[in-house]
């Protein structure tokens, strides 16, 4: 990859040669697209659910140029079906599917940056992303600057002559700080840098980064997209065909394509995504409202709350009043007290991951963000008493009762912090 200036990025969607059926499905509503996109009945057998093409290779005619799948590290029919489905969901070109969210982000950086280039990343970001930047990219000569992405001018001020890519999460993991995608996209475009948005927390059901002007939208399909704790995966969508093509080249070179079986499972999970997401969001809002003001909590954060500092941006940027299924609480206690709270939970599961059908509770300081350097953790506001709740599909009264009882029953030392 040369470090020459990137060609100007076009935001206009390119025409795809879709089958008439795929084209028709793309014209339907969101729920219909989730159920049907990418899943035309199998040409050979008529099977309604696409076959799992669990095959490494595909016979080639030999006598002429082969235009079908060749090798599953390069492309695979089942993975392609997932990519079409994800692209249809966001009303853009087929996605590029990876074996994990981290593989997707890594490929994105390697497809756009080289030694000597600079990356701007929101200072509140998934610990794995920061680990990638510090442990892998920095030694390779790609430097990262961490910036408060909730203020677009900070990003503008941070962009330098070597900046190639801006990567923000919104809502950010785990403080739920929002990034104003349209504003940042305008700045990035003016300065000739790419904007990528990690859309894992809201998914295309809740947020359309490409429509707001971002160049790239990346999700960990492990989370809401699969939704069943069953697969690890990542996907990148974009409108620039050249960028997508570069991503595919990096992907086939590194060998980080999603596996057929995981792709199949993810495709099945995708069928219920809009309904699951809406229910997660409804439950999270209800529970966040009920927890607000609790004497044992210093704060309750959820973009749907009126008390949320960026409430205006939330209502502007999030579709249909859906603010996602994540709540972040700050327990009025120290590390021991927070651990006691986690141990007192009976219904909710303490685990990594989010976006699954069951409520998952995470302690960022020691779990998802355990590898983040301490100073960066503090800048991001990730204290020992911060707890992230991925609200599930259980009856919300049961989830709430569990959280309340854990707050009551744990031994929280009152420590002035």
């Amino acid at each position, binding site marked *: 990859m040369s470090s020459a200036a990137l060609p100007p990025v076009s935001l206009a969607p390119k025409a795809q040669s879709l089958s008439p059926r795929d084209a028709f499905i793309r014209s339907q509503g969101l729920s219909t697209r989730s159920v049907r996109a990418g899943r035309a009945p199998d040409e050979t057998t008529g099977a309604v659910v696409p076959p799992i093409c669990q095959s490494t290779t595909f016979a080639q005619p030999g006598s002429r140029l082969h235009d079908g799948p060749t090798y599953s590290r390069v492309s695979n029919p089942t993975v392609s079906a997932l990519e079409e489905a994800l692209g249809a969901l966001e009303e853009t070109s087929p996605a590029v599917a990876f074996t994990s969210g981290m593989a997707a982000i890594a490929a994105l950086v390697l497809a756009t940056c080289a030694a000597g280039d600079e990356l701007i990343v929101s200072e509140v970001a998934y610990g794995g992303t920061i680990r990638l930047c510090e442990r892998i990219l920095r030694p390779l000569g790609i430097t990262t600057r961490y910036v408060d992405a909730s203020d677009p001018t900070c990003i503008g001020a941070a962009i330098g002559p070597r900046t190639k890519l801006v990567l923000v999460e919104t809502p950010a993991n785990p403080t739920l700080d929002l990034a104003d995608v349209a504003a940042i996209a305008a700045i990035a475009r003016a300065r000739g840098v790419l904007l990528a948005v990690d859309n894992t927390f809201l998914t295309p059901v809740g947020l359309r980064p490409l429509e707001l002007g971002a160049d790239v939208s990346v999700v960990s399909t492990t989370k809401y997209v699969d939704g069943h704790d069953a697969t690890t995966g990542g996907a990148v969508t974009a409108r620039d065909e050249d960028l997508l093509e570069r991503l595919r080249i990096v992907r086939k070179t590194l060998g980080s394509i999603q596996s057929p079986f995981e792709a199949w499972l993810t495709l099945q999970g995708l069928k219920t995504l809009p309904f699951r997401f809406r229910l997660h969001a409804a439950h999270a809002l209800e529970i966040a409202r009920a927890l607000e003001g609790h004497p044992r909590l210093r704060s309750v954060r959820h973009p749907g709350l009126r008390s949320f500092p960026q409430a205006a941006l939330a209502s502007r940027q999030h579709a249909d009043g859906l603010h996602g299924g994540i709540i972040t609480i700050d327990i009025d206690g120290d590390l021991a007290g927070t651990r006691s709270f986690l141990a007192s939970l009976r*219904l909710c599961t303490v685990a990594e991951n989010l976006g699954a059908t069951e409520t998952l509770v995470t302690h960022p300081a020691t779990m998802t963000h355990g590898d983040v350097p301490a100073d960066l953790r503090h800048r991001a506001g990730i204290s020992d008493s911060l707890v992230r709740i991925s609200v599930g599909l259980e009856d919300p009264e049961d989830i709430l009762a569990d959280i309340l009882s854990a707050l*009551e029953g744990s031994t929280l030392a009152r420590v002035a912090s």
Partner: protein
Amino acid sequence: MSAPVIVLKLGGSVLSCDEALPQAVAEVARFVRGGHRVVAVVSAIGGTTDALLAKARRWGGAADGEAQAVLVATGETQSAALLALALSKARVPAQVLDVDRAGLRALGEVHDARPVAVDVDAIERGLAAVPVVVIPGFTARDAQGRVVLLGRGGSDLTAVFVAAELGARLRLVKDVPGLYERDPALPGPAPRRLRTVHWDEALCLDERIVQHAAVRLARSRRIEIEIAAVDRDDATRIGDVRGAFFDEDAVAIVAPPLATGIATRLVRFDATPGDVHRPTSPPLHQTATFVQESPLRPSGHDYTRSGNPTRDALERQLAQLEDARHALAYGSGMAAIAAVVGLVPTGAEILAGDDLYGGTSRLLGQILPRRGVVARHADPRDIDAFVACVSKRTRLVHVESPSNPRLAIVDVPRLAAALRERAEALGVVCPILCVDGTLMTPYLQRPLELGADVVVHSATKALCGHGDVTAGVVATDLENLARELAFSRNAEGTALAPFESWLLLRGLKTLALRLDRQQASAQVVAGFLAGRSEVSSLAYPGLADHPGALVHARQSRGPGFVLSFELEDEHAVERFARELRLLPVTVSFGAVGSSLCCPATMSHASIPPARREDAPPPGLVRLSIGLEDPEDLVADLSRALDIVGRTCVRQAVAAGGA
């Protein structure tokens, strides 16, 4: 009669041996001194039941359940008499009422019956004369006066039933001071003692601690159960309460691990309790065999055909969903139905509904005759006429509600009651009532709660919901039936494979979500179709003018996601299907993707020639509504109907006027 009545159940842990009688006497006397009148329900003295069962096995054949019941019941009769004698000697006047005098009646299997009546007056007359009435637990008489047993731990059930009928307080006296969150005998951190626990949570605890049938009865009659040790009053209370623990320092309010909401239960099901890795998605045990500890002693599972951990987890969840004791998963819905039908012996009869899935009709009409079993069909909507078809040889009654494809509704509770009456009148054992609930799933309807003995499902449909699994389920509370089914399934090798079980477990997580939405969309589509003149005989239980709408509303939580209607003829159906762009033509139904089926030539083509009169008409269309935007579905149907309507008019004109 002003003194309050308390039912005290004294089990084998308290009446551990004859020498423990004084302790039992002291406990009863304590309550009498406290101003109570006591109904003491007693189990056999510790070890007696097992000893009697061993004698029965040694001297008797396996078949004679009745004689065995008579023998086993003597254990309770003995301890009741002994307790009454000991009480009188201790100058606490007591009277024994054996099950005859107490009028304890139960119905069902000889070893697993359910109490239906007790002579409250007889008990009250006894309590008017003496402060303590002693009744043997665990046993009762059936309608013919035969001795029947109330299942393992059945004295709990006697006690709950008697307390419910008397409106009395209820305490189960044990050798431990209440319920613990876990069996204290198991390894691990010391389990906490429960102060209060909801009925549903108590059902998660081991059956040896408190009989589940007793807890379910208490829940349905809204009775609190106290569980305490002798001479203590810090009892665990089982009732309509949130869970809480006893604690020396402070009371810890704890949310129940298994809450009442069905959505929570669907999502929270722990498929792998005890798994050291604690995965949140269950491991798939894609294995044929399991290593045995020793060639002489079977340990755990040995062969997936017989048992597999992934399938076990699925069956536990399915049983929980049906609120049943047993669930078995098969390789297909037909395998499940065939298993139930296989219980019927040669020479016996089956009475079935007349609107059934084609495959069921084929099984009943073309496979069963080879085994010398005759199936009769009748319309179950007319209960009296239907039940009149029950003969002395009828051993199984099989209906679908709603039926496939006409959505006919069967009044299941009335049918169950009518079958019992008919059987009593004929002097025969009541036939097993089996309901195929595939169009509802247990989320919307629970036939066992309505009085059915067995429920079957094609799990291929909405239970799995993702169109990727073929599977069947049988669920029942009946111990003997479950045992026979399990035996046959193992012998015939029809159990559901591990991977299919895993996928089905996954699908169940979104059952509530899917059905809520699919049902809402179906209501929209039905409303749209009701206004179209091209459509006739629209059938959907959610429409007010559907003949079974009221009955269905009483016995279910919603009208479901399947509807049917008629077009002019099969040509109209073909044209209609061809014009649809969104709905594919497929057999099956219930998946997240909507589909259309023409039963006459598809799902019901398998109806045997002898029953062609019950076959759906050629113009009948069955729609299964999925998760697509209902506006998109309506737009697609509307466009196709427009075209079909125009074609019909054109053809009529061409033929020289309509």
